[in-house]
């Protein structure tokens, strides 16, 4: 069955949207059109975002927060307006709770690192526990392993069910009085699973633990309201939400951020410096040492404008429709096994799968020769792969520019791959 057979509802006007993304009209080797199904890895960027950055470099470029001159003023304003826009986009109670980092990974490490040096309430030490899940991206595993190892705390984690959901059956023992911090992914970049954050946050706060949410795949896909969510930290990354590389965001509750020690030391994060000692600037500057990713913040603000103009509910609707169609079509392929939920319920737009008899690298190589760009490997989620007894998988992932015809191209490509490697029917 191809798209023609189904009446897909909830799709965005992809013709209009695709015209905004120069790369999508690019031709690959053999004059093949690009079928970009690797958006969970990084998204493409519209002219509006690229143009906002170019315009800044050409007309306004200057350092921020330091200069009295006109360019410095304009640059500072643009940078701070970017913060305000991003705060509004995630409904942060206050823009000063929005900290610019270089990516999600740094945002998550910022929390783990400042907890490592914290004294008092937030100190993590021997006997304390840190909770993550088996479904995490390496960027939400390694920082906590380092914290636990360095401070003598114990790392614990939730497992994954056969369906690819979090196994919360032991929640009351995994999150307990010794738990100091719980860090959980919102949407898995490998399995596509949307996790039941509400339950986890409720339990974590019951025992007085901090909650960190890795929203790297969530903020690009649906409307996020950090105030309603109730977590203490939310991390996400610019390049997955039609924004530039080189920028990520940590939203944190002011009360907690204020109580934590600084992360990186240097220019802009100080109140005063003598050779003997220094004191720290108020939020958000306290956590932004050195010249920040200025133009990247401005690019991210343009990305947020772009997403808001489409409407995040519409973006989510598109993702849902495309994912449903992809699941339906992929499930028809003989010898194909999906890792993760096969129903488009509580599920984001990343679909990882295995083809009997063909290694994911080889699948993606043949698909690439047909112009279909997917990712093969462990997708920075080795433990989740190990959970399903595999070392790697092929992943197709979608975004607001993905069309049903591209899903058809993927499925056709998979059939061709099977023929090439002489497997299956």
């Amino acid at each position: 069955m191809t798209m023609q057979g189904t009446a897909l509802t909830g799709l965005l006007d992809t013709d209009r949207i695709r015209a905004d993304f120069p790369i999508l009209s690019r031709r690959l080797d053999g004059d093949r059109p690009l079928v970009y199904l690797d958006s969970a890895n990084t998204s493409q960027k519209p002219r509006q975002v690229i143009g906002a950055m170019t315009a800044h470099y050409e007309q306004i470029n200057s350092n921020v927060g330091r200069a009295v001159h006109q360019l410095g003023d304009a640059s500072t304003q643009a940078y701070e307006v970017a913060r305000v826009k991003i705060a509004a986009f995630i409904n942060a109670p206050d823009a000063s709770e929005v900290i610019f980092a270089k990516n999600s990974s740094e945002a998550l490490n910022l929390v783990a690192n400042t907890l490592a040096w914290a004294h008092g309430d937030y100190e993590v030490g021997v006997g304390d526990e840190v909770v993550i899940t088996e479904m995490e991206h390496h960027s939400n595993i390694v920082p906590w392993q380092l914290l636990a190892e360095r401070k003598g705390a114990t790392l614990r984690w939730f497992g994954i069910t056969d369906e690819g959901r979090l196994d919360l059956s032991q929640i009351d023992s995994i999150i307990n009085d010794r738990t100091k911090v719980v860090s959980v992914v919102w949407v898995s970049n490998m399995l596509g699973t949307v996790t039941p954050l509400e339950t986890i946050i409720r339990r974590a706060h019951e025992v007085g633990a901090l909650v960190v949410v890795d929203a790297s795949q969530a903020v690009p896909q649906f409307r996020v309201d950090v105030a309603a969510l109730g977590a203490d930290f939310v991390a996400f990354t610019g390049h997955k939400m039609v924004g530039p590389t080189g920028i990520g965001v940590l939203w944190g509750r002011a009360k907690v951020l204020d109580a934590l020690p600084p992360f990186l030391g240097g220019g802009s994060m100080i109140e005063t410096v003598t050779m003997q000692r220094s004191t720290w600037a108020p939020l958000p500057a306290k956590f932004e040492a050195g010249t920040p990713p200025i133009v990247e913040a401005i690019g991210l603000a343009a990305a947020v404008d772009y997403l808001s103009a489409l409407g995040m509910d519409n973006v989510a609707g598109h993702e849902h429709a495309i994912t449903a169609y992809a699941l339906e079509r992929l499930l028809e392929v003989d010898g194909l096994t999906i890792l993760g939920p096969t129903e488009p319920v509580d599920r984001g737009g990343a679909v990882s799968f295995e083809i009997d008899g063909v290694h994911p690298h080889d699948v993606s190589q043949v698909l690439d020769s047909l112009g279909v760009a997917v990712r093969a490997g462990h997708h920075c989620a080795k433990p989740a792969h190990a959970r399903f007894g595999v070392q790697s998988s092929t992943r197709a992932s979608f975004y607001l520019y993905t069309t049903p015809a591209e899903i058809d191209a993927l499925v056709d490509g998979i059939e061709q791959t099977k023929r090439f490697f002489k497997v299956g029917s």
Partner: protein
Amino acid sequence: MDMQALYQEIILDHYRAPHHAGLREPFQAEVHHVNPTCGDEVTLRVHVLDGVVEDVSYDAEGCSISQAATSVMADLVIGKKIGDAMEIHDSFVELMQSRGRVDPDEDVLEDGIAFAGVAKFPARVKCALLGWMAWKDATAKAVSDSEV
């Protein structure tokens, strides 16, 4: 960018001869505020008695705008009831954050109206507010101490 509009004569006068400068006794609270971006500093003392701002004195280092604003602030709040002084503070902050879209009320702000032009220079707004923020902070401390 009209420098005459920014640097009103009143501002330059206060800058050259600031009122109430120099730290004085008695005082209930002393604070030290810094503008982290430029380094301007003020040490400021407040003495309150029976709900009235009896005295404000300070030792400040900074640009003409921050020095003059602190001087004008001291003139404005000394002798006022705390509540009234806070209202003046609020009007001044509102004026500063207006980007030039608010007309200052001379009856309330007196010499402070000279700072209307500063509101058009976002980088200087912090200068104009340094002394006021210090005063607000010190007064809050003085009040909470005297309540104990």
